[in-house]
């Protein structure tokens, strides 16, 4: 089920290790360290928890307590693209529920699951703060607004096609879906 990300190289891992030692003993660094671990690995793998516990002296049980308290932290790896579907008030009133169904139908996964090919992880979030464009969803760092079920399906198919084909340098540079 794990999808090792090819882009995690040794330098990133070493950078995380250095950050750990640099902030050793600094109060209140646990959450930034966990954020750094997640930035490095895409999720928080158990060895990173052990490492954090060892360096900071905070018991691993307490580290897990903090990880599970906050929604941002993931203990499971994510797919290549992270979908965040907004279910805030404005999106709810504008029919976000139908989009949840459409994403589920298209990807054959439920919320908080990753597709079998490892391309998408589907999550639902409380509010992305783009209420005037409701209903919205984000794929990685890009936001898409005023969606319909058709638009969502088309969008996901575009991402999937690109994931299957080797990306053209022009499309990558433009950040195109």
């Amino acid at each position, binding site marked *: 089920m794990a999808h090792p990300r090819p882009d995690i190289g040794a330098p990133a891992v070493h950078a995380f290790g250095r950050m750990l030692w640099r902030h050793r003993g600094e*109060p209140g660094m*646990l*959450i930034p360290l966990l954020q750094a671990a997640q930035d490095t690995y895409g999720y928080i793998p158990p060895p990173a928890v052990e490492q954090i516990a060892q360096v900071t002296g905070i018991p691993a049980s307490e580290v897990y307590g903090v990880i599970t308290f*906050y929604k*941002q932290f993931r203990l499971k790896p994510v797919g290549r693209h992270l979908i965040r579907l907004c279910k805030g008030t404005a999106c*709810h009133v504008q029919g976000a529920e139908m989009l949840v169904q459409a994403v589920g139908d298209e990807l054959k996964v439920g919320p908080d699951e990753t597709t079998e090919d490892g391309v998408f992880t589907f999550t639902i979030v409380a*509010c*992305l703060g783009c*209420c005037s464009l409701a209903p919205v969803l984000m794929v990685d760092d890009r936001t898409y607004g005023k969606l319909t079920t058709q638009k969502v399906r088309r969008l996901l198919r575009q991402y999937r096609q690109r994931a299957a084909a080797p990306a053209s340098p022009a499309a990558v540079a433009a950040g195109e879906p």
Partner: protein
Amino acid sequence: MTEAPVRSILVGLGSCGLAAGGQAVYDRCRGLLGAQPNGTVLKPTGCIGLCYREVLVEVRDGAGRRTLYGEVTPERAERIIAEHVRQGRVVTEWVVDPEEAFTKQQRIVLRNCGVIDPTRLEEYQARDGYRALEQALTAMTPAQVIAVIADSGLRGRGGAGFPTGTKWRLAQAAKDAVKYIICNGDEGDPGAFMDRSVLEGDPHSVLEGMAIAAYAIGASAGYLYVRAEYPEAVRRLRQAIGQAERHGLLGANILGRGFDFRVALKEGAGAFVCGEETALIASIEGKRGMPRVRPPFPVEAGLWGHPTSINNVETFANVPWIILHGAEAFRAYGTAGSKGTKVFALAGKVRRGGLVEVPMGITIREVITEIGGGTPSGRPFKAVQMGGPSGGCLPAALAETPIDYEQLAATGAIMGSGGMVVMDDSTCMVDVARFFLSFTQNESCGKCTFCRVGTKRMLEILERICAGQGREEDTTLLAELGEQIKVSSLCGLGQTAPNPVLTTLRYFQDEYRAHILDRRCPAKVCLPLVQFWIEAERCNGCGLCVAVCAAGAIHGERKQPHRIDPEACVKCARCLAECRQGAIEKR
């Protein structure tokens, strides 16, 4: 060099603008201008508030005239550059009439949003930026600063409305060599995005407000706690903090006056309860963000046990303006108990959604119908949800209620952080109550039993009502549970979680009765209570609905009207979303 009049083009690149495709417009403009530079400057700007017309592009000519274009696409940008920028001919059909949305608005907090390039300190300074800090440091004592803020009547804009001057005075009076300022940017209320817009569109105003507060209470360190979901705001704040430090406006010996104040940015990790001040402090300390008993209040013992003043983003953005213009000018707006302006995030079933800043005392109706333009359908609005999960749903009958802390509280809603979600007859109020309860139930940190278990039980009751299995005694039970949760919870989350239910019970009792007694959802939102059918006249037999039907319940010959077998239909509504003829109806 040509002698063309200096023109600038501003592209709205707040989160809304970016979501609407602003980056592509910006890139196209850059590409076109890059080919023939003629002195035109291209700049990003923050959210001007007219989110419904994004992507917004403003063209300023040498004579100071400003033209705002709405719904700009890369193709439209080409024509704007070809005609307006190159030939001086305004493309009238895409121009936004600022009157249409800016009437009745009064901009204090949003004074620079959508006007300046937030990535450039000089632009903030050109609009009196950091002058208030300079004035405070050179010409005022901390006590005088506090007196002006107290005198202005400024109250906390995060929701509770505690007088800011009083909070600062308490923090200043606390005897401790170490004190902290915290800016609460954990804007977690679904439906509210004004803090994000200010942080993205005018980050320096918040930093300046924090520095003034720090001087007033005697703090030398501050934290800016920003929601994890706001990556753009985090990027701009990091940049702004760096700029301010390089220019001696933050850091050691600010403006050479011997005053030190450092700001650190803390990214939240996703927990609604961290909007509560003691939970927020726990989160900055690296712990689980759970609230604790007050007293002691944070102004006595806050972060790491030291006196701490926590104020909201919007509150801080007001501060420099008040110092520069005086308490009197601020007090000129508002009602007896609520002074100044309030920013609202207008969304839902409203024609002109976006950010609006209005003087206190204006009525809800004025905001929705005169600024927001009413509902897109033209039908009257049914209700407005104010204050997010802590607030309430007010019926149109209360639309003349003025925006005022006390008068809103009297209705059962709250000023809250300023989310305003408009609802019309296609919104089910029971479903809205269920929606908010599912949110608060999910976000309850679990410390207090009534909040943890009580919200769960309330949610179960609401779910069964929406599923058509409501019982007659359910409304009484909901009211009873709601009152108990309110009085038995430690923090604001639990104390206000029942509000959406209690207000809908109070004002929309008939909708609850329709669900429970008639097994009917008047707004046709609760799917188990709705029947789907195909209007034969509009159906062209394309078969799209057959392909998506979860239950194989739709039959018909190709190119002939189809029909839904009501026995087999599982009411998933996929056909409704799919049909392009609008032939599928609910009844």
